[in-house]
C-alpha cells in the first residue's frame, strides 16, 4: 500500500498510467462512441478526413477511425498475450535455474544464451513463413512470447541466485520444503516488483514485434492490427501519394503504447531503486 502511495506521488507514473488507460479505453469502449464497422465501405478509397469520417478512409474505403480502434485492440491483445507468455516462461525458468544451481542451471543458462544470440526476428520469419494458414492473433502472440522469454530468464536468474543464500531459505529448507515450493513461495515473492517491470517491457516488445512482422507481410490473416494498417499503407503507396491519415495516426498510437509502457517502467524504477531519486 505504501508502495502505491509512493508511486502515485510520481508525476511520471501518473502520466504513464493515464496514457496507457486512455489507449485501453479507446480500444475497448471506442466502438460504443464511434459505431462504424470495419467491413462496410463508407466512401471512395483514401477519402480525405471530413466531419463525418474524422480520419477519412483506407485503400478500400473503410472508415479509418474504426480501423484504428480495432487495430489498437488487436495490438494491445497481442502484446499482452506475448508479454504474459514470455514473462511466465522466462520467470519460471529464471527462478528455477537461479535457485537450483548445478547442471540444471548450466543447461538453462546455455539454452538461454544460445537463443539470446539467435535473433527473435529470424525465428519469427521462419515460423510465420512456414505457416501458410491459420495465422491468428493468438498464434502470433504465442510465437512472439516463445521467442522473447530469454532475457527475462537471464535477468530473473541473476536476481534469484543472489537471493538463495538468505537465511529464510535455509529455514524453509530445514522445514522440508521442496525445491519447487521454495522457488515459488520463498524466492518469487521477493522478485515480484522486478518481474512486473520486466513484464511491462515484454508487453511493449510484443506490440512492437507484431507491428514489425506485419510490415513484411507475416502478420495475422483474420484481423486488423496497427501493423497491418501500416503495411497496407506502405503497399498501396499512401506515402508517395501524401495520404498522411493512412499511416500517421497508426504510428502515433503505436508510439503512444510503447512510450507509456517505457515511462511506466522507468517511473517504477525510480521508486524501487532509491539511487535514481532526485
Amino acid at each position, binding site marked *: 500500500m505504501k508502495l502505491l502511495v509512493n508511486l502515485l506521488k510520481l508525476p511520471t507514473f501518473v502520466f504513464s498510467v493515464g496514457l496507457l488507460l486512455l489507449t485501453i479505453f479507446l480500444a475497448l469502449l471506442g466502438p460504443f462512441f464511434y459505431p462504424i464497422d470495419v467491413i462496410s465501405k463508407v466512401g471512395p478509397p483514401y477519402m480525405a478526413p471530413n466531419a463525418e469520417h474524422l480520419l477519412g478512409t483506407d485503400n478500400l474505403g473503410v472508415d479509418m477511425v474504426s480501423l484504428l480502434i480495432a487495430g489498437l485492440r488487436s495490438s494491445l491483445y497481442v502484446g499482452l498475450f506475448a508479454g504474459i507468455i514470455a514473462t511466465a516462461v522466462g520467470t519460471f525458468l529464471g527462478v528455477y535455474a537461479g535457485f537450483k544451481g548445478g547442471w540444471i542451471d548450466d543447461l538453462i543458462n546455455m539454452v538461454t*544464451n*544460445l537463443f*539470446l*544470440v*539467435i*535473433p*527473435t*526476428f*529470424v*525465428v519469427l*520469419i*521462419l*515460423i510465420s*513463413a*512456414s*505457416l*501458410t494458414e491459420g495465422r491468428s492473433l493468438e498464434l502470433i502472440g504465442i510465437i512472439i512470447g516463445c521467442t522473447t522469454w530469454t*532475457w527475462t530468464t537471464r535477468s530473473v536468474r541473476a536476481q534469484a541466485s543472489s537471493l538463495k543464500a538468505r537465511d529464510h531459505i535455509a529455514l524453509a529448507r530445514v522445514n522440508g520444503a521442496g525445491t519447487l515450493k521454495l522457488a515459488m513461495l520463498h524466492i518469487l515473492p521477493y522478485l515480484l516488483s522486478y518481474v512486473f517491470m520486466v513484464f511491462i517491457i515484454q508487453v*511493449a*516488445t510484443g506490440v*512492437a514485434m507484431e*507491428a*514489425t512482422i506485419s*510490415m*513484411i*507481410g*507475416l502478420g495475422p490473416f483474420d484481423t486488423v492490427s496497427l501493423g497491418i494498417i*501500416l503495411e497496407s*499503407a*506502405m503497399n498501396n503507396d499512401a*506515402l*508517395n501519394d*501524401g495520404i*498522411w491519415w493512412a*499511416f*500517421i495516426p497508426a*504510428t502515433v498510437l*503505436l*508510439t503512444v503504447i*510503447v*512510450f507509456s509502457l*517505457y*515511462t511506466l517502467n*522507468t517511473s517504477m*524504477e525510480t521508486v524501487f531503486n532509491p*539511487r*535514481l531519486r*532526485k
Partner: protein
Amino acid sequence: MLKKYPTTRYILRSGGWYFLTFLVAISVNFVLPRLGKANPVDIIIAKHGAGKTQHAIQVKEEGYLKEFGLVKLDPDGAIVRDADGKPVRSSLWSQYVSYLGMCLRGDLGTSFMNYPKKVSEIVIEAVAWDFALQLPAIILGWLLGNILGALAAYKRGVFDYLFFPLSLLVCSIPFFAFGMLLKYQFGIVWPIFPTTGGYASNIHYSFSWEFFSNASYYYFLPFMSIFPVLLGGYAIGMRSMGIYELGTDYIRYASYLGIKENRIISYVFRNAMLPQLTGVALNLGNMIGGALIAEIIFSYPGLGTTILKAIQGQDYTLIQGTALLVAIMIIAANFTVDIVIAIFDPRVKAGMAGA
C-alpha cells in the same frame, strides 16, 4: 591452457561458444521450415505447373526434389526409384547432413524467383548495403548516445528534464515507423531527399566518385531512420549507469579531493562504458532485425528488402538463406563486441572474467 594469455583465452572461448551458436542457428533454420505442413516443392509446382504437361511437371518436380536434397541419389547422381518408378524420399537425417554440408560450403541453394541465380550471390550483394547502413549508425549512435547520457546523468536539472523524456519518446518509435514519418516529411512533403532505392537508376554500380556521392544522397533518410532511435536508447542506458556510478564512494572521494569535474566525468564514463558494451551485445539481434525492416520503407537494396521480396514471392530457399545470413551477421556482431570487451575490460586481462 593459455594461462599466460587470458585475453586470447577469453576470445578463443567465446569464439567456440559462438561457433556452437552458429550450428544451432543452422539447425533451427533447417527444422523450422519443415514444421509447416506445406512442402515448398509442392507449392512451387502448384504455382508454376499450370498449363504444362504431366511429364514436364514431373521432370521439373524431380529436378527441384534433387536440388533440395529431398530424394535419395545413387553414386552417379541419378534419383533412386521404387518399384512404381516414384523417387524415394531421403530420410530427415540424411537431408540434415547434406544441408549442413551445403551450408558449410557456403552454398545456400538456388532462388526460385531469380532462377537460376544462387541464393548466396543474392544475399552477399545485399549484405554489403546493410554493412554500409548499420555499422556507422550503431557506432556513431553508441558514441554520441553515451556522451549525451553521461552529461544528462552529471548535469541533471533542466538538461535532463528535457532530454530524458525526449530520448524515451524517440526510442519508443519502431525504426520502420520513424522511417515512414521521415520519408513522408523529407521526401514527399518537402521533396529534399530521394525516397526509394540505394542509388539513382541512371547511375552505374561502380567505384567512382559519382556513384558514391549519389549513393550517400540516397543514404541519408534510411540512416536517419535508425540513428536517432539508437542514440536515444544508448543515452538512456548511459544515464542510469552514470547516475549509479555518481553515487558510488570512489566518486564522492574524488570530488572531496577536489579533482576537476572533467576528470570525474571521465572516470564515470570509463566505468559505465563496459556495461554499456554488454548492453549492445544483448540488444544486437533486435536492433539489426528492426533496422532491416526500416530499409523496406525506402526499398533500400539490403537484406530487409530481400526478405520482403522473398516472402511475397514465396521463395523458400531465399527466405531461408536470408534468415541464415541475418543470424550469421548477428552472431558475428556479438563476437566482435566480445572481442572489444576482452580488449577494454581490465578484468579479462587479469583472468577474472567468465571464471
